[in-house]
């Protein structure tokens, strides 16, 4: 490789990552701004974090969001894992293409359509809107993401272990919990995290399906941003960014370690006489 090209490569990587990360870094820096303005630096201060902790509406919204994200991600992981099993293990059955269509469609459908259609469903069945309707809506699109993530894991692994267990008379449900689930666990956990963060982020679907008393954090941030930009929102955003970043890095390190020890075990098993 000649030097010119590698200089070009280094520059494009540096410029590309600067573009991806500078806005977030600037947002974090200005959350520590003494001044009310988010564009003029007035000295270091943590007063916006203190102010944020005294903003009861904001804390309530954060609590609602965490509860919605936790319950919907958990239900979505159960349903999505079953959905992945159906796609990867159940072979052909009547209505299979409709099923896979329903799994993939929410991934590409605009949020406004998903939100509108779910709201119209809740109106049609006379369901009062609030915490539970948002949670059901988030579960529905979350399970589709989980199903796709877990399915790719199911397709990738060796089926002979499952077959051996079944041949030896292990019932299917037990085989799933003893053999399949431990093997696909990294995919299931990744699916849960994806469903959790997607629920944490969602503004549009929550705005359609929510009711009085269940304002989520993105809705709160959105309405405040429309009134004007303040360092307090920067402080809230900073905390969210830090939480998600730490979560993703820890999760990826843990899975890497698990993979590493699994590979080591396999190698030792192969080397044993």
């Amino acid at each position: 490789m000649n030097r010119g090209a590698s200089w070009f490569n280094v520059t494009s990587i540096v410029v590309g990552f600067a573009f991806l990360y500078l806005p977030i870094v600037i947002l974090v820096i200005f959350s520590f701004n003494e001044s009310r303005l988010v564009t003029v630096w007035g000295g270091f201060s943590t007063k916006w974090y203190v102010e944020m902790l005294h903003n009861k509406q904001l804390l309530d919204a954060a609590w609602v969001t965490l509860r919605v994200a936790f319950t919907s991600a958990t239900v979505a992981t159960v349903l999505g894992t079953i959905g992945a099993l159906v796609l990867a293990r159940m072979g052909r059955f009547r209505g299979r293409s409709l099923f896979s269509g329903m799994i993939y469609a929410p991934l590409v459908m605009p949020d406004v359509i998903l939100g509108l259609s779910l709201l119209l469903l809740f109106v049609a069945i006379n369901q009062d809107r609030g915490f539970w309707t948002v949670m059901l809506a988030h579960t529905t699109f979350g399970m589709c993401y989980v199903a796709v993530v877990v399915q790719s894991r199911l397709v990738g692994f060796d089926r002979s272990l499952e077959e051996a267990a079944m041949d030896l008379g292990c019932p299917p449900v037990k085989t799933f919990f003893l053999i399949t689930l431990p093997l696909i666990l990294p995919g299931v956990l990744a699916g849960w995290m994806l469903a959790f963060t997607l629920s944490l982020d969602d503004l549009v679907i929550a705005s359609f399906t929510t009711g009085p008393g269940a304002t989520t954090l993105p809705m709160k941030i959105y309405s405040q941003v429309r009134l004007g930009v303040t360092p307090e929102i920067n402080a809230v955003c900073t905390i969210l960014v830090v939480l998600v970043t730490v979560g993703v890095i820890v999760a990826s390190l843990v899975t890497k370690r698990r993979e590493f020890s699994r590979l080591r075990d396999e190698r030792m098993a192969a080397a044993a006489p």
Partner: protein
Amino acid sequence: MSRFLARAGKRLAGRWAVIGIPYAWLLFFFLVPFLIVIKISLSEVTIAIPPYLPTIDLAEGWSSIRDAISQFSFENYIWLTEDDLYWKSYLSSIQIAGISTLITLLVGYPLAYGMARAPSQWRPTLVMLVILPFWTSFLIRVYAWIGILKNEGLLNQFLLWLGVIDDPLIILNTNWAVYIGIVYSYLPFMVLPLYATLEKMDHSLLEAAEDLGCPPWKAFWQITVPLSLPGILAGSFLVFIPAVGEFVIPDLLGGSNTLMIGKTLWVEFFSNRDWPVSSAVAVILLLILVVPIVLFQNQQQKMQERDK
């Protein structure tokens, strides 16, 4: 024999339970709501709760459904063609999404290329760094640009300080801000498929071209670009399809004359409270998106078959 049959029956029941649970959930929370959207798009707006007519009372059975169907009309769809706000919104959404996809490709290609040529021990970290912003909130990433793009924002301060410009550029609340927002938010979707194809590329082809006296830029156009075409197509679809229906970016970064259909639907629903027209807008938007979605799936299938 009967024990065998009983066990086989239990297994079959188990199989149908496993299929049935997620199937029923998706039917009820995905397909049925969509049928309701179609039904309401054929209804008439009225001042009531719910604000449309006719309503179907399932307790009354078929006669109520028959009555409702006889009252259906395509008035809302005719209205969409008569008022130029709607077709202008559709066209402008497609245009904004198209331009943004092109810019994302131009920004993403060098980055993906640089990553694919980086030392192999660095590549997993670089991929992780591209994915990481995708996990942080979409809303926050769009919000971050407001402080940068404002008239008295950091970008203008920086350019004025450099002396490149004498008066601040007006970017926020124009289509330019929407382009920047879409490119920024969807860049990972472009970079990852591009990186995947560029990393697999056989480097000896470029060396052979160089040895035979082909200038690097020509080798790039005749070898690298055609070989990375699957990545270019996949990335472009992944940016274009969600960008067409985008709401948050045009609403927060765009101006009052930025027309995008997601925003039009939102206003129609929340401000004008016209549920039938917003349902019709949603149905047409989905029909428009079916074309790129089908093209994308065909392309993905072709790629998978070739990999086999």
